């Protein structure tokens, strides 16, 4: 049976979701997206630049090939986040959104009361809401109860590359909610992504870890492999951790 990720009724083969920000140039981004194997890519909603006819992101990311996931990055209020989602939908996107309501510009941690409130409104408006949230199992449950199609706890602060700082909370979230759990933000290297999947997460979303690497295309490939390996490792069922050794070779038949 195919091992797939289902979000809002849509099925995806890749469990890696990637951002489109901070690449040195469009050609690098295009090659990195291809190497990542991602089917869902995040985009931000901003004012059109009227001063110069700049290249558009949409000239480089084919919406027929990728599912574009508009985010509400930079929104500090429920109002701005909801407004951004409504505009994204009007601009031609489907109704799946990555909802973030930022609480503080130094940490970029979510303002979870505003997040929950925005999620409720957007679910009512018919959106498939994927919320960026804390690694807090209670908030994850509240978001699931509000009708979110997944919960996306952070591994560490956005862009920090610190990896999964609280794997135990991520495990509790996995036990707490039935919707997909996607680790969003804070991943730095391929091993971080593998750990997320090994914990049992349904996917991982990253931007800076790939875009900010010295070789973004190679890192995208590494992330694709790590997500695949981590998922297989989870499905295979790891051995229990033990303090002492257990011999791998037979103890019988020794001649010494």
């Amino acid at each position: 049976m195919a091992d797939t990720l289902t979000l809002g009724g849509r099925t995806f083969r890749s469990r890696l979701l990637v951002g489109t920000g901070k690449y040195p140039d469009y050609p690098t981004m295009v090659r990195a997206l291809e190497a990542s194997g991602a089917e869902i890519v995040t985009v931000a909603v901003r004012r059109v630049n009227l001063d110069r006819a700049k290249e558009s992101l949409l000239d480089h990311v084919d919406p027929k090939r990728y599912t574009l996931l508009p985010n509400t990055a930079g929104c500090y209020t429920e109002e701005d986040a909801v407004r951004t989602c409504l505009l994204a939908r009007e601009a031609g996107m489907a109704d799946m959104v990555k909802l973030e309501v930022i609480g503080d510009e130094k940490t970029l941690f979510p303002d979870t009361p505003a997040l929950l409130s925005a999620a409720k409104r957007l679910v009512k408006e018919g959106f498939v809401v994927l919320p960026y949230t804390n690694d807090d199992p209670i908030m994850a449950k509240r978001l699931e109860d509000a009708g979110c199609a997944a919960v996306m706890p952070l591994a560490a602060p956005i862009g920090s590359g610190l990896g999964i700082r609280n794997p135990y909370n991520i495990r509790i979230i996995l036990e707490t909610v039935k919707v997909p759990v996607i680790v969003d933000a804070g991943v730095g290297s391929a091993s971080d992504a593998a750990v997320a999947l090994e914990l049992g997460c349904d996917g991982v979303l990253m931007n800076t870890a790939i875009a900010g690497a010295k070789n973004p295309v190679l890192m995208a490939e590494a992330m694709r492999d790590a997500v695949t390996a981590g998922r297989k490792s989870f499905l295979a069922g790891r051995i229990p951790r033990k303090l002492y050794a257990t011999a791998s070779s037979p103890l019988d038949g020794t001649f010494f």
Partner: protein
Amino acid sequence: MEIVVNGDPRGVAPGSTVASLLRELSLPATRVAVERNREIVRKSEYDAVALSTGDRIEIVTFVGGG
């Protein structure tokens, strides 16, 4: 008459509509969303919605982001 587009004042001909503004700015309607005085203008209404002096227009699109 003067309106405000993405925060900057801009003169447009009387009788302008959202559609004519987008044409003037060479923006494809398929890739943007438009707000007029904080209310979303549906794409199907771009031809019908006439602009008035002082209107605050926001035109947004998608850019790279995480």
